[in-house]
């Protein structure tokens, strides 16, 4: 028995070590929750000035997508701090109430109900489409306006919820841009690689549906599981299919691996990445293999006006550079601010109509909604990696 107790002691000690040792890296997650604690104390303010406008955030701050989730929370927080410093919205300060969906449908449902229970005024967030969709239904039932910052699956549009707006351009816009790029390059045989999840598969499906109409041929659709190391067999299959152009629909983390292996495996045609890979990390991770790779992306922070300031400020605050969706999240808060100011209150109908009719020029481009609450105008651009940096090109 004593032996067992000794083991217990060792385990507790190890645990304590972990807890102390990792306290630093856990910082970003607690930052969002600081707001949460305060929010609990104060009553939810209505449009009267001096109150608090609470914004619920649904983001995957733990789990496989924790990196993006934390990046989202940080971007929201940055926007909110700026607004609060400048006097808030209609005299009210903004506060975040962050809940973690861990990119999992069941946890997202719980997180959503926790957000609803806290009775915020608005909800933003949503990274993984699969986790966001069940939550959207709940927000709709609870009568909360939701601005989906990142998730851009067309399935969200298909739900046709009257208070749910998508800040990110849907995949259909990306493919329109892609189509223009293909024409300018004069290639016809296209292969896509997705990662088997909602967002990337959706993008690949849109390619399969739209590109043949525009006269291109999809010669291969391959899937690379998230985090799978080996794609050499896929590369060979793509080469064998005779693809002249590979469209990588997945995320930047795996993207570098795919690009490297495509080049190592002897593929010599064009490579293009979707917006999931539009991150400067892609360039560093790819090294020389990344040269010449195209990216269809929402306006890149670095290329946007005021982008450098943004990066500098973000890096200064959080120690790392902003992620691919950072500006979308940042703009989300500003869209909300402008809508509230236009409406003059936090009234559901008024703010919803204000958002529907908004025209906001943000870091991520023009935000203006179509009838179906998707972005009306595609904000996609095409970039090419040249000498270790993104360069804007006109397809």
């Amino acid at each position, binding site marked *: 028995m004593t032996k067992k107790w000794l083991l217990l002691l060792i385990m507790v000690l190890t645990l304590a070590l972990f807890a102390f040792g990792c306290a630093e890296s856990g910082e970003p997650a607690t930052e969002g929750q600081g707001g949460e604690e305060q929010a609990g104390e104060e009553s939810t303010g209505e449009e009267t000035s001096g109150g608090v406008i609470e914004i619920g955030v649904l983001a995957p701050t733990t789990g496989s997508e*924790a990196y993006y989730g934390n990046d989202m929370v940080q971007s929201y927080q940055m926007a909110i701090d700026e607004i609060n410093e400048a006097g808030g919205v209609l005299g009210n300060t903004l506060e975040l109430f962050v809940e973690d969906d861990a990119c999992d449908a069941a946890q997202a449902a719980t997180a959503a109900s926790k957000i609803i229970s806290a009775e915020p005024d608005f909800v933003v967030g949503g990274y993984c489409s699969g986790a966001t969709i069940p939550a959207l239904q709940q927000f709709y039932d609870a009568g909360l306006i939701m601005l989906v910052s990142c998730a851009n699956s067309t399935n969200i549009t298909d739900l046709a919820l009257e208070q749910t707006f998508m800040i990110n351009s849907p995949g259909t816009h990306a493919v329109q841009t892609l189509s223009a790029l293909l024409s300018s390059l004069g290639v016809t045989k296209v292969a896509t690689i997705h990662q088997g999840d909602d967002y990337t598969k959706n993008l690949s499906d849109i390619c399969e549906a739209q590109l043949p109409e525009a006269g291109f041929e999809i010669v291969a659709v391959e899937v*690379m*599981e998230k985090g799978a*190391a080996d794609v*050499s067999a896929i590369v060979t299959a793509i080469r064998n299919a005779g693809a002249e152009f590979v469209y990588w629909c997945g995320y930047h983390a795996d993207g570098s691996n795919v690009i490297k292996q495509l080049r190592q495996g002897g593929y010599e045609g064009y490579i293009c990445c979707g917006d999931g890979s539009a991150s400067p990390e892609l360039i560093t991770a790819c090294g020389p293999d990344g040269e010449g790779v195209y990216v269809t992306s929402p306006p890149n922070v670095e290329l946007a006006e005021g982008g450098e300031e943004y990066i500098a400020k973000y890096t200064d605050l959080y120690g790392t550079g902003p992620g691919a969706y950072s500006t979308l999240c940042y703009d989300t808060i500003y869209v909300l601010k402008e809508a509230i100011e236009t409406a003059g209150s936090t009234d559901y109908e008024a703010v919803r109509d204000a958002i529907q009719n908004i025209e906001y020029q943000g870091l991520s481009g023009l935000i203006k909604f179509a009838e179906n609450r998707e972005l009306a105008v595609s904000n996609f651009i095409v970039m090419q990696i040249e000498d270790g940096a993104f360069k804007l090109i006109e397809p």
Partner: protein
Amino acid sequence: MLSAGEVILQQLMNGLILGSFYALIALGYSMVYGIIKLLNFAHGDIYMTGAFVGFFVFGILAGTVGSSWGGVILAMLAAMCVCGLLGFLIQLLAYRPLFDAPRLSLLITAIGVSLILYNTVMIITNGEYMFFQHSIPAGGLTFGNVTITWVQLVLLAITAVLMLVLSWFIGTTIWGKAMRAISLDKPTCRLMGINVNKIIGLTFFIGSALAAVAGVMSCVYYGSLHYFMGYMMGIKAFTAAVIGGIGSIPGAMLGGLLLGLLEAAGTQALGSSWKDVFAFSLLIIMLIFKPTGLLGKTEIERM
């Protein structure tokens, strides 16, 4: 466009490389299963930990030894030691108290250990991918449209050497013989004066060290690493171990290489979205028709 022959040659090469990763990890599964009948769920995460240890050691050494093969070899040795010790400690702290408990409890403990490793690395790396930048010269042998890089050849060579060494170790040394004896009959080994716990510890050490080699190799070859890289790799390696005949060392090697080749063939023939279905279906069919695996021995049940 590649010719049919080139496709086959290229896919064969792809399968062999992937298969050697599977084989190295499968060895650890098979050794541990053979000796204490435990499906060591944490093994995939030890592979992942090995990759990260290698990555960090490589980063530290890059300044002094350079970021070519020298650094890689040193990083590999360091990762082997650290992961070997880690495997030994896991066995000592988590599994040993449960050797006499129901098998399912042991399995659950293994899942628990897996969660611990996985989440620890996730917290340390903040859930981000790491990228392994080395300066190993590119290039290799070219046959028509097919290129086999030097890195690939070195990886295959390392795998082959390790397997030969392991076969020698298990087959001829006193330690190896003790391992085989324990897998047959633990109580009798105790009576014969074999320090069973020590041998089990050694088994974990060796299995984990091999997984660490695979981890560092994957850093070099694929260039990126992340905290969940061990999960699917672990499952696939276990599949490989079962296909080869779990508990059998040559079986693990054969199973690993075979699974790698089959996956490459599956990707080529059915497309990558059905690749895993193909692999798992094969596993199930295999188990139905030859439950002992390719090289496993049939045990005569005794009443």
